[in-house]
């Protein structure tokens, strides 16, 4: 999966009204709540087999920071 596909997939899972980019601040989204966090964790776990912790969620801001937490090398 490349970065663009990941971002598009995340946009769909979170059912966003806006177009997500690497610079979007996830927590600034109207749709951001505990359920969105749960969806994000599930999406990343399904796609990368990585379970994000509560601390990870706390530290993530933009989509790019999420990608860095997952590991840039995992995207082709």
């Amino acid at each position, binding site marked *: 999966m490349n970065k663009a596909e990941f971002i598009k997939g995340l946009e769909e*899972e979170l059912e966003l009204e806006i177009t997500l980019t690497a610079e979007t601040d996830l927590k600034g989204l109207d749709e951001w709540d505990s*359920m969105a966090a*749960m*969806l994000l*964790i*599930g*999406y990343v776990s*399904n796609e990368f087999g990585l379970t994000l*912790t*509560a601390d990870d969620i706390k530290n993530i801001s933009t989509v790019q920071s999420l990608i860095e937490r997952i590991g840039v090398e995992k995207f082709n």
Partner: protein
Amino acid sequence: MKNVLVTGATSGIGKATCNSLLNEGYRVFALGRDVEKIKDLLDQFSEQLHFLAIDLNSYQEYTKIFDEFLSGQKLDGLVHCAGMEETLPINLYTPEAVQRIFNINVFSGIELMRFFAKKKYSNEGAGVVFLASVMATLGQAGKTGYCASKSAILGMVKSLALELAKRKIRVNAISPGVVNTPMTQKLFSQIEEDNIERIKNMHPLGIGEVEDVTPTILFLLSEGSKWITGQNFIIDGGYSIQ
């Protein structure tokens, strides 16, 4: 000496159950995947404790348990502790994900019972205990798979209790609230501090330890419970009465 088969024996409630059974003089046939996690008990109880590493999702391997591992001994009890927990919103619950949680939480239990029910593998009057959860009767966001699988256990327990009554085999479930085990530690690592506090506060007697759960399991395997079957025992520090 009475023989009991325990699944999920390498961790949490299953391992604590093994420990209590061994101390009460039972012979324990323990199943799990990672032998390292039960090494201490194997060293301490080398005569009484037998261990088989098996992935319980591999149903075709079950004859190994009953035809080889038990080496002709009949069981007086079965405690099915192996299970998984997960938080996954409905949008992500694909048929594969549903299958995965039902495989270990439900279907493995039914398959174990298909063998256990046979006269050659179990004694009359044996006791069976399934691990359900308070989540079998309550709901929580993100727990569709877990709640559905634990509810399924309650249905299965009642049917099996009726079916096996003619052999005086009793089948019951216990439903713990949040108990401090590796499963709970993993869950807590995924949620925020104030959420953890909230969960703790929802248990009037605080969250449980494995020792709060094992005495009921041992009771349900013992003579004293010979007229109890098809029931669900909620052990949750008061969580579900609010």
